[in-house]
């Protein structure tokens, strides 16, 4: 589904990604781990089409289509979803209104009618239950005054609403206490299917106890330096990132 080939990306003059290769098939969960500053968040931003980063070489394909010329919203319409590490606040715009706009924009782009209000309400009810979200929460301004945990839970709620083909969870575990982590992971697992794929970006193995990856990649200094199965995450946890740094 997602095919990243020799991806190089820079911000300003600084090259951050130095030749990334990843293949993700439908139904798979991939974890990308690595120390701070290794390029994990840059990778997610580049896949989502953030224009602050310049792709200097290589390609990103989604279902065989080159994403290079697609704007961020066009990538979203094709099913790319990014759960932000730091979700932004939009004062005065309720979670419900935001989701309604997002869903209908995607439907419009894909030649569908707007979602009828009653159906929208039904989906909202279902998905908020899935993530154990109080419905009052949905009429609050998007991310304004949300706790760290609420923000992350809200990101996964949006993922549930949008049903993306490819979901990238960028440090979704940071700021979550253990109960919230379980709820969020539980939600993600329920959304997992044979048709979609998930990339989990994290520092720690902790989240991977709940969202079990099929593959683990270690990103260091802009390159994938190690790939393996879920046992690689445990090995990392045990030996620490110094092990990787020493080898490279």
């Amino acid at each position, binding site marked *: 589904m997602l095919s990243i080939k020799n991806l190089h990306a820079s911000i300003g003059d600084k090259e951050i990604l130095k030749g990334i290769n990843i293949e993700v098939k439908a139904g798979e969960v991939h974890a990308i781990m690595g120390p701070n500053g290794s390029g994990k968040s840059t990778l997610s931003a580049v896949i989502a*089409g953030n224009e602050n980063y310049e792709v200097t070489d290589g390609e990103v394909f989604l279902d065989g289509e080159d994403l290079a010329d697609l704007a961020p919203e066009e*990538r979203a319409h094709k099913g790319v979803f990014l759960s932000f590490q730091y979700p*932004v606040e939009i004062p*005065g*715009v309720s979670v419900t209104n935001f989701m309604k706009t*997002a869903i209908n924009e995607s439907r419009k782009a894909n030649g569908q009618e707007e979602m009828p209000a009653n159906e929208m309400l039904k989906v909202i009810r279902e998905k908020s239950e899935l993530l154990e979200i109080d419905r009052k929460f949905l009429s609050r301004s998007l991310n304004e005054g949300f706790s760290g945990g609420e923000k992350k839970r809200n990101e996964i709620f949006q993922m549930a609403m949008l049903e993306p083909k490819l979901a990238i969870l960028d440090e979704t575990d940071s700021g979550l206490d253990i109960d919230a982590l379980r709820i969020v992971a539980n939600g993600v697992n329920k959304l997992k299917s044979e048709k979609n794929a998930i990339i989990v970006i994290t520092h720690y193995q902790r989240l991977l106890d709940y969202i079990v990856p099929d593959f683990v990649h270690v990103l260091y200094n802009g390159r994938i330096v190690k790939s393996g199965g879920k046992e690689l995450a445990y090995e990392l946890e045990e030996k620490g990132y110094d092990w990787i740094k020493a080898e490279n």
Partner: protein
Amino acid sequence: MSKYTEDDLKIELETKEYEYGFYTNIESETFPIGLNEEIVRAISLKKEEPEWMTEWRIDAFRAWKEMIEPEWANVRYEKPDFQAISYYSAPKQVDPNKTLDDVDPELLEMYKKLGISVDEQKMMNNVAMDIVVDSVSVATTFKKTLGEKGIIFCPISEAIKEHPELVKKYLGTVVPQKDNFYAALNSAVFSDGSFCYIPKGVRCPMELSTYFRINQAGTGQFERTLVIADEGSYVSYLEGCTAPSRDENQLHAAVVELIALDDAEIKYSTVQNWFPGNKEGKGGVYNFVTKRGLCETNAKISWTQVETGSAVTWKYPSCVLKGDNSVGEFYSIAVTNNYQQADTGTKMIHLGKNTKSTIISKGISAGKSQNSYRGLVQISPRAENARNFSQCDSLLMGNNCGAHTFPYIESKNPSAKIEHEATTSKIGEDQVFYCNQRGIPTEKAIALIVNGFSKDVLNKLPMEFAVEAQKLLEISLEGSVG
């Protein structure tokens, strides 16, 4: 698929013609240009006004001649040549007995373009429309329904003839002829406008609505509005404006007076969308308006305005809280784009005891525009326990626009409680990217963010206006993120 960038968006916006920029060729009767006592008398004669009204105008004109244009506002523009304007223009063949059915077909066509076709109006079961096209009211509906309640809603020219006692008693009591340069000019030459009287204890059953429109080239428009809510009555009044696109600047100097007697309430809502000028800052309406309301005991006046148009705006809808326990409110959204300049705000004059005022102002600046909030909260020595809350928020888009806040507070009573909050923020790239990532294109994302920013004020508008206002915000700001 090629990438659609902000630059493309900007080009699209710039080439987009002003949506309501068309010109209807109605045969008009227009006075020669220039202003002197003869012209003032001629206007009065044309309107078949009584002697006292003519004299009232002449007084105003004499005062105006001695006055100078105010220069304290934070706006720069070429001063109009007041001798190059024609002060009267009316569509021909106005027949007071005419019904909507036999209105000039070209006018009907114009209403259609404006989205207020007469057919539509008839179907709008809750809104009575008094449409001012080029100074003379040509269509008035729902008069009968209102008449049954004793409500008077008619062109002010008609009120001067039919209800002289009311007009004589209240005209100029809130905005005196000599109040300021533009008010004096308006008092001398006003051609028409609306008059509304709600009798004691009557709750007006529908929103009263007026659409103003500048049509004839080179004619200024000087409306005069007088709304009187008698004791214990209630009225909600809507005013909406659109203007056709023109190369030369057009002057718009209106006066609105509201009088809320004991226990009465007036809600006055405005959506202003006069032609803002083109992207180089050429053309556009000069909007120099004086709006003021007087509250007697326990009375309440709310001003709500959405200002998206005009090249230069100079406007301060104010409340004189004369009676004890009276309440004044001001809710405003002012949007400026390209080279627009707005200097707008309010004055809350607390005279009575326990008077309360609220000011919520949202300024949005984009392009190379300048947006200023100017407000005065004045507490007089005998206004015991007066309270004011003011909140002024500014939203900036891009790096070439300006937002300014000039709050004045004068308190002469130690028991007063005055709060003022102000914020300035910028639409962030990160906010736009977040929306993009959820599938929301940049233009829509900005509309969403701006609507969120303006929500506190949009919520104060009557339903049908809120929808129109939201659309206007979108149109006014398309492609302006930087």
